[in-house]
């Protein structure tokens, strides 16, 4: 089953901001036991969050725009099914929330209203594509059962070391076989390489005239375009100003208040896209590339070396002036930002170098889009990221006690139960 990103973005009615905040905040504070909504009822839901983007965030440049309510969800299957389930099951919650928003009509139109305000994602990363929420639950239970069995029978199992898996498999013979992983999980890497190879070969073949004169003209045009792009890029980069003020957003305390309450965290960042169509275009191209990598290459719980992200998405806001980034990750903010810098400097610099906290308060100085500078300036980058953050009002995780690595390991245990190869590697998973 495929995981999909829902990002419903609606404008909040003037004067309703406080009332909406007051309604959502207590639910978020008691996500497990509040009597308004139980997100765990929705079996397709992995994570969801509600938060408000103030009109003046991150700077006062956009004060004419209304404050926005964002409802983010990471779900199995169709978004329309999820929306219908929500409205049918808890129309009070859904209607109360959206009655504070512009263009809301009534319960009958709520479904189409939400669908028409769903902006999905420009780029979407899933740690374990195809892994439905219920499968994650089942495999965690299976692992716990096997762990208990091994603990209780360790010495007996060790009497016949070569038969350990057989004995365990026999004991758990009623377990059903795991569903095969999606095609792209195992073949996407190859497809990605093939696409790259075809592009390079076409360009080179065209350039040297092997593919006819029209292809040659196109190839030369592509190269000229790339050169022009590089020149324009460098001219932007040399005139852009990085944020050099020792400055802390007033949001930081609120963000810190909702952080580290459990093993996982949610990150919400909203940042201005630098003005002019050049940066917007660059950003769109980079996000297209990241999306491709996420679909084809990063399918095994590892996004360019970062092994703590469950779901992440980038969304260009409807006004095309701001970039929204959301992520559900394991561990602390300090670790998360550190992993970004340690392992994924290039990708993240390519995205956020197109953004700023405000006029003349840009991303740390960058050269050649991602090659030099940018997020490698650790302290300046962390301050930039911190100041772009917003605190969520509601955040729900279906499995707050499982890390990305745990989920991958659980699947390996399940799969290994039905495999006869590589016994030693399987035993290490237990």
């Amino acid at each position, binding site marked *: 089953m495929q995981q999909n990103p829902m990002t419903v973005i609606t404008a909040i009615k003037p004067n309703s901001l406080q009332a909406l905040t007051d309604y959502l905040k207590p639910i978020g504070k008691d996500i497990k036991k509040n009597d308004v909504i139980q997100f765990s009822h929705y079996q397709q839901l992995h994570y969801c969050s509600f938060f408000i983007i103030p009109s003046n965030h991150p700077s006062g440049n956009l004060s004419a725009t209304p404050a926005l309510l964002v409802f983010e969800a990471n779900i199995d299957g169709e978004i329309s099914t999820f929306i219908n389930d929500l409205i049918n099951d808890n129309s009070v919650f859904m209607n109360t929330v959206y009655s504070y928003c512009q263009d809301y009509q009534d319960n009958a139109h709520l479904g189409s209203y939400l669908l028409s305000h769903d902006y999905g994602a420009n780029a979407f990363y899933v740690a374990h594509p195809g892994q439905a929420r219920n499968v994650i639950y089942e495999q965690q239970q299976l692992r716990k059962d096997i762990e208990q069995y091994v603990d209780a029978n360790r010495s007996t199992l060790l009497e016949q070391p070569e038969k350990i898996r057989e004995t365990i498999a026999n004991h758990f013979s009623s377990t059903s076989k795991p569903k095969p992983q999606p095609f792209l999980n195992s073949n996407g890497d190859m497809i990605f390489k093939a696409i790259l190879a075809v592009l390079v070969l076409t360009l080179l073949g065209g350039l040297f005239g092997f593919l006819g004169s029209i292809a040659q003209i196109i190839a030369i045009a592509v190269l000229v375009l790339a050169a022009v792009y590089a020149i324009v890029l460098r001219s932007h980069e040399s005139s852009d100003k990085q944020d050099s003020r*020792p400055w802390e957003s007033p949001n930081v305390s609120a963000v810190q208040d909702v952080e580290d309450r459990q093993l996982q965290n949610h990150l919400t960042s909203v940042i201005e896209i630098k003005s002019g169509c050049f940066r917007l275009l660059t950003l769109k191209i980079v996000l297209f590339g990241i999306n491709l990598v996420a679909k084809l290459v990063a399918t095994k719980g590892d996004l360019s070396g970062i092994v703590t992200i469950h779901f992440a998405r980038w969304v260009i806001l409807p006004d095309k002036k701001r970039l929204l980034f959301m992520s559900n990750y*394991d561990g*602390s903010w*300090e*670790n998360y930002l550190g992993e970004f810098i*340690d392992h994924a400097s290039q990708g993240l610099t390519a995205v956020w170098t197109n953004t700023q906290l405000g006029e003349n308060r840009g991303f740390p100085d960058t050269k050649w889009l991602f090659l030099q500078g940018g997020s490698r*300036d650790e302290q300046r980058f962390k301050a930039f990221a911190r100041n772009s953050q917003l605190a969520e009002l509601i955040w729900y995780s279906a499995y707050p006690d499982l890390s990305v690595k*745990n989920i991958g390991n659980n699947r390996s245990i399940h799969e290994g139960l039905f495999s006869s190869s590589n016994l030693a590697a399987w035993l290490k998973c237990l």
Partner: protein
Amino acid sequence: MTTLNLQDVQGIVFSGYNKYMSCSSYYLLQINDAKKTKAWLKNLLDQGQITHGEDKANDSTENRLNLAISYSGLEKLQLDEASLNSFERSYREGMYSAHRSTLLGDQDGDAPEQWLWGNKANSVDVLVLLFSKDASIHAASQKQHQAAFKKAGLSIVWHLDAGEKRQDADGFAVEHFGFADGISDPIVEGFPTASGAAAIATGEFLLGYPNQYDGKLTQIPISEQFGTNGTYLVLRQLKQDVAAFWTFMDEEAARQGITADYLAAKMVGRWQSGALVEPNQDTDPKTVSNDFDFSKDPDGKGCPFGAHIRRANPRAVGLGTSDAESLTVANRHRLLRRGRSYGKALENPRSDDGQERGLVFICLNANIERQFEFVQHTWINNVKFAGLYDEDDPLIGRVGNFTIPDEPLRRRVCGFQQFVSTQGGGYFFLPSLSALGILGNS
């Protein structure tokens, strides 16, 4: 090569004075009269009493003194708001604050409300570290300084005396559980003690110098003149329950059919001698070396993933796609340890004598959030560390399970107890001598 002005850096940065100073005391003080405190500070400097890096100890050296200040201390010394805000957030909030204690795992019995000092009720402004050559010199020095504190408008909130020094045959200090300690302090570029190639950038431990990120400078509070050559000092009073530790080892080892020494070594990651626990070892080889990076033990069959020393510094395994990348990442989170044990050694480690003992944990770092707090939260206390499920640090953690990787099947300790608890703690700034001068003259 970084050249340091050693005269401007407090001596504790370069040395814990273990070689020549057998006694030490830690005074946690509150400022009641800022004017008097400033005069006292100025006087200490004028008399050359604050030990700096150039002032090397030898056989005839009698005393060493260093001094650090908490955020509330700087507030009381009347720094302006912009200056105060230029310090890093963790320091400004303090170790006892709600968010910091969540990060550090100081909950329930370890919560700041239970602490002897360093919480809201018993807040600490100034830390004075006193060292002496022997007990009689130390007694005289303590008496003299205690009188001076009184005159300086300083009251003593708490004080800790380091216990009699225990050393093993290799010259390493032995902590109360009986393990050699302080073996793996990083070698720092530009430090007078530095030798060898694996040096960590100066900026990781002193402000104003390039750090481990592409040679960037770690941010300096207030001004270059004030902040350079200063650093942050973290202090925690960690009480150790020695009898509980060894009684648990005895009982659990008997249940598992192994020895208590073996189990304890697996939990620590080193044998009592300090030797690394390696695959296929049943007893202490007693060959101590710090020259390893876990690349020969990628599956934890020697030193388990959850073992204390592997959590405290995972070295070349598990933090990146290659050994080199992992080592680069690990070296962005190093600590310089300068603490000592307090309280008397327990004669029979299986039988409690009702006296308190433990570790005065002191570490230095240029960025508390990226170094001390990171190590504590992301490595030590992280139940998901290295792909684990529900395990805490078996030595200094609270409660949890512990997996000992083995072939063909792992061994598991289900539910170890808490042997170490937090009794107090604080974040301090260890200023350069010139910064102390600025404070004293302000």
